[in-house]
């Protein structure tokens, strides 16, 4: 039925710190009633020490939303505000021994409630940077907004492009129609998937582009990698630049990207982005290739 960990079940059946907190001095209301998950987080902060002396929640939502709220209150109690703000949605999920991919948004909601409550305590305005679409690729937990933004940002044309950049569609194939729909919505048409747009999309040593100095070129590579990192971090991976040797760019992949079956797809995606950003043909290699080669 539900692929919930024992910890999730336990927190759902016996939620900690539920109900109103009368002397709360920081309150965060987040969520979407349309999507059926909404949470009010209430903090009692000691104004001297900024220590969270008590935390309560009220949640309208599914089992894992209630469990995530309960876990969050346990995790932040007796922390200072600054310490509490270090808690990420992944920390909440880990605390609960994991959440099903469809339910990761519950932990995101927890983190956002925390930020909103702290902002409320500090008298700051809180802006949510939340944008989440329907889950499209269940194998790699990629949602529609992520796919659409990646298609737009990188002028992707085909299913294979999308898989290279986001991993979406690289698993069981069930979401291919949905991804094609997004491609059509963005591009106005569907490009044939064979012969991956060589020479059409990837500008090859475009003469128009002014030649970069060595310094500018490395800065540009760094900037491009920086832009890719959040995407990898979502999958608990990361990338850092190790060495630039002419047309060979060596990077270190870490975390979930490293050694997984998608590593080459990830490298391919990074390479494609660098080619577009720099307007020259180059090769992205894992750092291991540097050591042996």
């Amino acid at each position: 039925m539900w692929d919930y960990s024992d910890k999730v079940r336990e927190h759902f059946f016996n939620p900690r710190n539920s109900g109103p907190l009368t002397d709360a001095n920081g309150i965060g209301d987040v969520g979407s009633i349309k999507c059926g998950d909404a949470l009010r987080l209430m903090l009692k902060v000691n104004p001297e020490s900024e220590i969270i002396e008590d935390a309560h929640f009220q949640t309208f939502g599914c089992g894992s939303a209630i469990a995530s709220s309960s876990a969050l209150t346990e995790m932040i109690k007796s922390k200072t505000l600054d310490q509490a703000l270090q808690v990420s949605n992944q920390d909440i999920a880990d605390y609960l021994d994991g959440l099903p991919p469809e339910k990761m948004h519950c932990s995101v909601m927890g983190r956002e409630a925390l930020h909103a409550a702290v902002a409320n305590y500090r008298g700051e305005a809180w802006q949510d940077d939340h944008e989440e679409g329907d889950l499209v690729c269940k194998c790699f937990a990629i949602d529609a907004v992520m796919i659409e933004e990646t298609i737009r940002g990188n002028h992707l044309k085909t299913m294979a492009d999308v898989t290279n950049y986001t991993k979406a569609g690289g698993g069981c194939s069930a979401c291919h129609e949905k991804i094609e729909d997004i491609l059509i919505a963005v591009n106005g048409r569907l490009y044939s998937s064979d012969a991956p747009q060589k020479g059409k999309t990837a500008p090859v040593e475009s003469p128009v582009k002014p030649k970069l100095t060595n310094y500018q070129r490395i800065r540009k590579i760094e900037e491009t990698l920086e832009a890719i990192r959040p995407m990898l971090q979502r999958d608990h991976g990361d990338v850092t630049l190790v060495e630039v040797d002419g047309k060979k760019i060596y990077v270190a992949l870490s975390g979930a990207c490293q050694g997984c079956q998608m590593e080459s797809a990830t490298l391919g995606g990074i390479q494609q982005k660098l080619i577009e950003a720099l307007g020259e043909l180059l090769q992205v290699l894992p750092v291991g290739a540097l050591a042996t080669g």
Partner: protein
Amino acid sequence: MMTPIYMDNNATTACDPAVVEAMLPFFTEQFGNASSIHSFGEQVGKALKEARGRVQNLLGAAHDSEIVFTSCGTESDSTAILSALKANPERRTIITTVVEHPAILTLCDYLEKEGVVVQRLRVDKRGRIDLDEYKSLLSERVALVSAMWANNETGTLFPVEEMAEMAHEKGIPFHTDAVQAVGKVPIDLKSTRIDMLSCSGHKLHAPKGIGVLYLRRNTRFRPLLRGGHQERGRRAGTENSASIVGLGVACELAQQHMETENTTVKALRDRLQRGILAKVNNAFVNGDTVHRLPNTASIAFEYVEGEGILLLLNKQGIAASSGSACTSGSLEPSHVMRAMGIPYTAAHGTIRFSLSRYNTEEEVDRVIAAVPPIIAQLRKLSPYWSVDGPVESPERAFKPAYA
């Protein structure tokens, strides 16, 4: 643990023991292929004929050749719609409703992308369609009308016989997805203008993976699966003989229990509904309570979310289902609740109880006792709820960001 209580019969039903018993020989000595000349096949052929007759009886079909066995309700639905489009290529419009099962809606969405015009009749707060709107859409461009006999989520019955009559007057073929209706409400197809009807075994105590498409004589038809001459070439593929035999028995049993379904089961459902509503405030029944399946009660519990209710019910061995699509990965409540304009705070808290002739009064009373404390427990967690009622103007008191 207490003995489990199953009230999710619109999702699927238990096979009747008599059905299982009738099927078993077809896995062992009666393994033959009905198409074969030899005695192995001949006996199976006879059994299939008998089963076909039993299905014919339950549906009130004029001829047993109007019964086409398929693999499930979904296949019957797909066959009906695709056949109508293929057989009437000059007609590119389909009329259906916004509350159909995904077996219809998803296919229609797909066909729309291929250029078919799909007109979806809307429903009112009680889930009823407007026959005047329907009438205004009937034209010579329409290849098929497809409207469900009974809604799987709310049990609401559509006036399909009247709708079929109206379509017939305009020369438009009519299909009904009767997957939830067959076995629960009396059906007599020969006295209607319905051209095609879908039915699925596992909703009436037959096994999963067997369905029926009723195809009125002289209806223009194109098969979905082509190959051998099984089902007179209308659905190729060696017959699922064991399941067909099981479905035959299930249809006979359904006919015997039709009265029970509409008296005893209905009374149990009403008792359940009354019992729960008497003890839980801010709760209401969804759908058309006048024209409704006898076994279904869809109850919205305001200000709580359905999955929590189901988890707590499940802990007490009670199986029901929720109107929220939470478990499917889609975050919004079901299309049926949205179509009826049920507010989000109630749609997400909708629970469907669907009974069968196997439920007892004692079970109903156990569920009546179990539900109120569960709702109270979850409401205590809800930001919309105060001590014994919703907070004052709940939608204003709690307005989460990015709502």
